């Protein structure tokens, strides 16, 4: 019994020290967060820095940061003849809408940000919108692509990337026209997760609009194995297989198809294939995969912060270690929208609540040319406050590089169709 008591008291001692260490570790950060002195514009970034959407979350963060670095390198945003730098604050939504709302409230109340840059996922974006409304803080979203984001007509939220229903559907029409001999039948694999499913539904609805025939629509759970679905589709022999999914599933679709020795004439995916990690992971097997983008480094647009799309791409490549895709570009362009609106507003930091409402109105009036393309927000309709200007471009991975293949006026290379059998 004596030894039992001794071990208990030792445990108590260790427990006490563990608590003390934890408390010390937690106390430390309060020292770190001393406020910077010079007046700056403060922007909050809410995105998925952990959890299942971590890849896209980091792409959005990188995009927003590219703008902040570029504008700060120029001395900051120019307002009434004076330049103010931009301070970025981050909140991880842990790929979870509720945490996204926590992050928004924290950035607005604790960090006193003037404006927010929106989350990667549409779910988080929808959960954050009421918080923006409550505090009257504008939020510019460089990524959220679900049409649901704009349904409730969010007064303070603006979207740079056209909602996916306007792009994935159209792309099949482009594909049908670009392919020779023209594709006729389509099977759609849609991963049952937010965004992926909406992309898949966009493809499904686009089939009819493009005058094609839908032979299968398969909704698969993200944790499921893909062999049964691919075998089933292989037996139906469609010309085109369209996939709505995120990068991990897209990689698995290609690997599983190859391991079953099945290759459709065209394999089209929406988001993710332009991410360098996709071609890197699959190597030569990535060749021939078709994608849909709303921006490419080869487009001819430009602006005075980033220069041409090509210059933007070179700068981003140097910083990120790979070519930027349209998410990073859309997020960087979100910064351009903010910079332009601040300039027109002409108010110095920190913005008052009235200034922020005026900033929202200024953003709504945006009509600018950027390296990303023209940006102008819808004033009504199902895509309220979304920028639906960009047109979808069909791209294909050829020799490990992403090249534009359609429509004709944007094409930089011939579309490889039908794809050869796996070697």
């Amino acid at each position, binding site marked *: 019994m004596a030894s*039992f008591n001794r071990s208990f008291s030792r445990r108590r001692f260790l427990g006490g020290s563990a608590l003390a260490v934890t408390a010390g570790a937690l106390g430390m950060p309060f020292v770190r967060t001393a406020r910077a002195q010079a007046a700056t514009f403060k922007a909050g970034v809410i995105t998925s820095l*952990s959890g299942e959407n971590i890849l896209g979350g980091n792409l959005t963060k990188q995009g927003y940061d590219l703008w902040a670095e570029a504008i700060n390198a120029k001395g900051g945003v120019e307002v009434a003849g004076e330049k103010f730098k931009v301070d970025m604050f981050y909140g991880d939504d842990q790929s979870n809408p509720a945490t996204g709302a926590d992050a928004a409230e924290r950035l607005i109340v604790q960090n006193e940000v003037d404006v927010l840059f929106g989350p990667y996922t549409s779910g988080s974006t929808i959960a954050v919108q009421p918080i923006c409304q409550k505090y009257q803080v504008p939020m510019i979203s460089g990524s959220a692509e679900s049409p649901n984001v704009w349904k409730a007509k969010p007064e303070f939220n603006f979207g740079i990337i056209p909602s996916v229903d306007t792009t994935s559907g159209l792309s099949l029409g482009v594909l049908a026209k670009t392919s020779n001999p023209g594709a006729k039948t389509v099977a759609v694999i849609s991963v049952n997760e937010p965004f992926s499913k909406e992309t898949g539904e966009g493809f499904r609805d686009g089939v009819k609009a493009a005058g094609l025939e839908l032979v299968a629509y398969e909704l698969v759970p993200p944790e*499921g194995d893909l062999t049964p679905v691919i075998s089933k589709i292989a037996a139906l022999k469609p010309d085109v297989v369209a996939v709505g999914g995120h990068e*991990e599933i897209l990689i698995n679709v290609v690997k599983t198809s190859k*391991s079953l*020795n099945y290759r459709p004439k065209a394999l089209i995916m929406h988001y993710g294939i332009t991410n360098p990690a996709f071609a890197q992971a699959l190597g030569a097997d990535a060749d021939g995969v078709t994608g849909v983008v709303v921006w490419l480094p080869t487009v001819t647009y430009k602006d005075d912060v980033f220069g041409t799309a090509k210059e933007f791409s070179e700068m981003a490549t140097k910083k990120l270690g790979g070519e930027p895709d349209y998410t990073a570009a859309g997020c960087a362009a979100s910064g351009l929208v903010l910079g332009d609106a601040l300039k027109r507003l002409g108010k110095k930091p920190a913005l008052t609540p009235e200034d922020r409402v005026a900033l929202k109105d200024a953003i709504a009036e945006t009509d600018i040319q950027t390296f990303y393309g023209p940006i102008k927000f819808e004033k009504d309709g199902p895509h309220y406050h979304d920028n639906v200007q960009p047109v979808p471009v069909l791209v294909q991975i050829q020799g490990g590089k992403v090249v534009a293949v359609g429509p004709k006026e944007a094409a930089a290379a011939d579309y490889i169709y039908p794809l050869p059998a796996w070697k």
Partner: protein
Amino acid sequence: MDLFLQTLLNGLLIGGVIATFTIAFQLTFGVLHVIDFAVGGWVVLGGYLGYYVTALLGLDGFVAIPLAFVLFGALGYLIGPVLYNVRNSRTARPELMALALTFGLFTLLRGGMLTAWGFNTRNVTSMLSGESLAVGPVIVPLIRVAAAVFAVAIAGGLFLFLYRTRYGLAIRATAENRHNAALMGVNIRRLSANVYGLYAGITAMAGVLMGAIYSVNPEVGLRYTLFAFFVAVLAGLGSVGGAVVAALMLGVIEAFVSTYVGSSYSLLAIFATLFVVLLASPKGILRRGL
């Protein structure tokens, strides 16, 4: 008919794939009485080792398999005694504390991997990646066959080890009754460390194969944990033979529901099956230990 055969094969091979990371999990439960949340973490670690062996050294992914066993087996051997101490501590619910410990380890691994290796999805390439064999109307993906062979080899190897060696006898005795085993001179603490090391090594080897069949990023671990738990319970916790049967059963159900009912119902069917089997046969399908 062709699709039927293909679906059957697909299902059996999914089962083989699931079995690779559940067999050793069962052994660990049998001996340590710990439900290891970190099983998915070991799988992901193995996958990353496979990726780095192929991407940095330019070697075939299969080279990473023995490497994974040595490296993560050693790591598991170090963690084993800690787990044993917690499992056998004088707290109100040591089995829960052990579960919480493995949950903490899993979270620590996940956060560490995200920080160190980033968030991109990685791929393990090997000589069998993407290769297939046509047998009549059925396409046989060779990499999955390799996984199934691996599962059979692990199960067979464990069986021989457990039933044909003195040390195996000690393990079985411990699984059956640790107090009697201890009285017979088995050093349970050291044996537990060995078993946990063996399990971590085997699971990481399976992880290399998972990276080659699917792909790997730090967030996929929970998926493997989920399947390992479910297969283990369906089989009867601690039952190595049952794990193989249960994994095959789940694989075949997933494939057939996917093909003939609708893919969106495949996991619904799996989890519902598990639920019903548990109610009908509360100790798993085989109702016996090791």
